């Protein structure tokens, strides 16, 4: 076997050719190994990295898949920011607010002999089909106006400036406030930031024409005048723009790259020309939160899933640390009749039997107890046998002297455990906490069985719902974004506590 490569540093002294030959082989072998490890890293990280990179794309299914991602290019991110700031004053969220306008540049090449007409520009309705909740929000097409002006020419390429303006729907002037429309009765009503519901006046014919188009949940801007609140206009989340040129012409440049190219490159669709940074680079992530809004409560389901997953994981960790260490200690150190039987039946046997065996009974039991929720989920997996096993192994490895001296001092069993043994168990408890957190966060079967209402799902169950709802239409942006988000906590945990992940696993394997 070869020695470590770094100890085989060449000495300046003359050596036999044989020695040099061997040293060269050693170095070369190390080089091959590092190359192999690098390739392996590519293989094992590849799917995640491609998934994460594609999750920021407008269309993660683009073919051929490209690693030139405008959403990650500083130049385009800056433009997205500035467009968002033009459209709404908010470079993060973007959008189009009443009274603002956005300019977007397009370059069209028209060779001699081809039509020289300016491109046809229109807003188009685009709202990704949201199946979790179906609030139809106001579309830019129904409100905003588009204007095209030529701005210059170099060779046969003409530059055009597209201006999108969202009009103000009121003549009133005064302080502008934001609100969300509530369920309408005879009048339009809106809930202000503070929770106050006020009637909304429509003082222009343009506004009145829109009265029945605006749905509950639509964010709007209001003007507070002396007589009350009047509608200034809806807050448009995105501004989808389509640019078409004629046969023979070609679109050669635009402020942002298009989301879709169709019609042999003669038709460019921009899903949002007022994206803002979040609406551009993190568009799919924002969608994951925004498009899962529960129509009843207005809460984001995705956010609830994240909260539920965290709650469940922390509850599991707390219960695991307390009960697994108690049980593990008893099995490792206390002598009592039935110890071996308990170890074999309740610790080892339990881990071999598939959970599907307990499915029916646990489901029916928790249903009868009205516990088909997070608490029932927690209760059914309160003290995992694997954790008990881990703590038993750990306590068995600790020296007995500690307890004996505690016993001489007259400490009771519980005091000994709490004051003497538990403080020594730090590393094992960390390992236990990590495995419990990871286990709970990644748990899928029991949450799927026990959690029946979509607001009480954990992230894993929610994501598998995403697959059902969006996967069928090939809308993978949201799915990948959700998957990346749900992987992040465990990855952070792993990076911070890497030592414990690796050590515990390998140790128990060697011990068998």
């Amino acid at each position, binding site marked *: 076997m070869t020695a470590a490569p770094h100890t085989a540093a060449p000495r300046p002294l003359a050596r036999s050719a044989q020695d040099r030959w061997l040293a060269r082989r050693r170095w070369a072998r190390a080089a091959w190994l590092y190359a192999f490890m690098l390739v392996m890293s590519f293989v*094992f990280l590849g799917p995640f990295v491609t*998934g994460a990179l594609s999750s920021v794309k407008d269309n993660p299914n683009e073919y051929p898949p490209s690693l030139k991602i405008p959403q990650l290019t500083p130049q385009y991110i800056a433009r997205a920011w500035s467009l968002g700031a033009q459209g709404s004053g908010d470079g993060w969220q973007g959008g189009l607010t009443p009274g603002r306008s956005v300019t977007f540049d397009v370059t069209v090449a028209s060779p001699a002999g081809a039509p020289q007409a300016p491109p046809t520009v229109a807003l188009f309705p685009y709202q990704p089909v949201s199946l979790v909740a179906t609030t139809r929000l106001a579309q830019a097409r129904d409100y905003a106006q588009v204007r095209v002006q030529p701005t210059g020419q170099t060779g046969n390429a003409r530059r055009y400036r597209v201006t999108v303006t969202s009009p103000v729907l009121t003549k009133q002037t005064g302080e502008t406030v934001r609100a969300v429309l509530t369920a309408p009765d005879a009048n339009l009503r809106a809930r202000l930031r503070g929770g106050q519901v006020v009637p909304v006046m429509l003082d222009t014919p343009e506004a009145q024409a829109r009265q029945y188009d605006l749905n509950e949940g639509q964010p709007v801007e209001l003007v507070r005048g002396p007589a009350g609140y009047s509608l200034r206009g809806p807050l448009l989340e995105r501004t989808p723009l389509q640019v078409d040129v004629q046969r023979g012409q070609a679109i050669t440049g635009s402020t942002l790259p298009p989301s879709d190219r169709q019609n042999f490159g003669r038709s460019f669709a921009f899903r949002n020309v007022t994206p803002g940074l979040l609406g551009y680079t993190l568009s799919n992530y924002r969608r994951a939160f925004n498009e899962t809004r529960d129509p009843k409560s207005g809460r984001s389901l995705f956010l609830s899933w994240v909260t539920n997953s965290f709650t469940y994981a922390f509850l599991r960790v707390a219960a695991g640390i307390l009960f697994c260490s108690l049980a593990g200690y008893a099995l490792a150190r206390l*002598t009592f009749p039935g110890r071996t039987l308990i170890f074999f039946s309740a610790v080892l046997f*339990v881990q071999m039997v598939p959970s599907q065996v307990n*499915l029916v009974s646990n489901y029916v039991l928790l249903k009868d107890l009205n516990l088909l929720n997070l608490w029932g989920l927690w209760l059914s997996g309160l003290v995992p046998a694997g954790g008990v096993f881990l703590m038993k192994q750990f306590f068995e490895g600790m020296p007995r002297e500690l307890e004996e001296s505690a016993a001489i001092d007259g400490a009771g069993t519980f005091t000994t455990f709490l004051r003497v043994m538990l403080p020594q168990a730090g590393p094992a408890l960390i390992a236990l906490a990590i495995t419990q957190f990871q286990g709970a966060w990644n748990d899928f079967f029991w949450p799927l069985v026990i959690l029946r209402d979509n607001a009480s799902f954990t992230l894993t169950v929610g994501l598998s719902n995403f697959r059902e709802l969006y996967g069928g239409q090939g809308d993978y942006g949201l799915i990948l974004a959700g998957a990346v988000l749900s992987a992040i906590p465990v990855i952070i945990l792993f990076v911070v506590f890497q030592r414990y992940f690796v050590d515990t696993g390998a140790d128990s394997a060697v011990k068998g």
Partner: protein
Amino acid sequence: MQRRQTSAAWLFLAPFLITVAVFFFYAFARAAYYSVTDFNLFNTPKVIGVKPYADVLGDPSFRRALGNSLVFAVLTTALQTVGALLMAVALNRRLRGLTFFRAAWYMPSITSSVVITLIFLWLFQRRGVANYVITQAQAYAPLTLTFLLFLIGVQVTQVLLERRRALPAGWFDPALGVTSALLATAVTAALAWIGVISAREVPPFDYQYFADKWITLGGVRILSIPLLVVVIQNTFTTIPTLMLFFLAGLQNIPRALYEAAEIDGATPWQQLTRVTVPMLRPVTFYVVTVGLIGTMQMFDQVAVIGSAAPGDTLITLAYYVYANTFKAGAAPVNLASAAAILLAALILAMVAAQRRFFPSEAS
């Protein structure tokens, strides 16, 4: 003293024992009971004997699930164990920076199966990244083949030259390999530059993985393509973890054994089969046991892929139990329970058989 310890022990164990009793033993007993009744979640169960077992065994969907589960468990366990062992042997050197690589390899095994399944579903679409990679491999095949051809040619020449100089170079000599690889790369690049060889034009490879396609053996459907994707996925996620188990085991093998083998003139292959594999028996036993228990219960991937893969291509025993328990209307819970009991029996039998026929020196 003894009595006090006994009562303390029961107190310490109480939360554990109570939950295990309620959510495991009671549940197990109830499943066993339901499996011999006509229970359907809504009626009062009545004992009808072993009919549910007969019904389950006669159910084509159950047989498919059984076949899928067994094929999946055996194939995945075998692939991941052998793969992990080979990787561990290749990496069993004291190298710097292993921690960094270890972190990278661990990524698949720490993230949830749901996340990985979603990513794999996306990768293995008809116009997905997997097919794109295959298309590219086909397109660049002339270059790759040229490279390999020159690599082998140059390596063989070099080794023969070294041997003529009476140096004991092996066919896979690493130092010569580096020069051969560099030379082959240069030649391939030069040939591509002057246009002798170039990438081919190939139509996009658009194989549909999640379809009703099967690998058959003598007309019997053995393995469906969607299940094969899940096999690949599972192997991919578990290999790194198992490899680290093997690596830990390898570090415990005394160096002296290899030195003795080398003195006796054992080839690297003989060292692997005569020293490494037997010495790794306890770890292998653990890895295979855990692998079988885990893969026989495969559920998450099937549930997440759900309707994306047609019909029976992916159904496993665990999923069969779940699907029958939550079937709309009067669910055949007795069949589900019978299938669950059979699944448990199968796993326990596998573990027992393994213990019986492949005794581990550690136990």
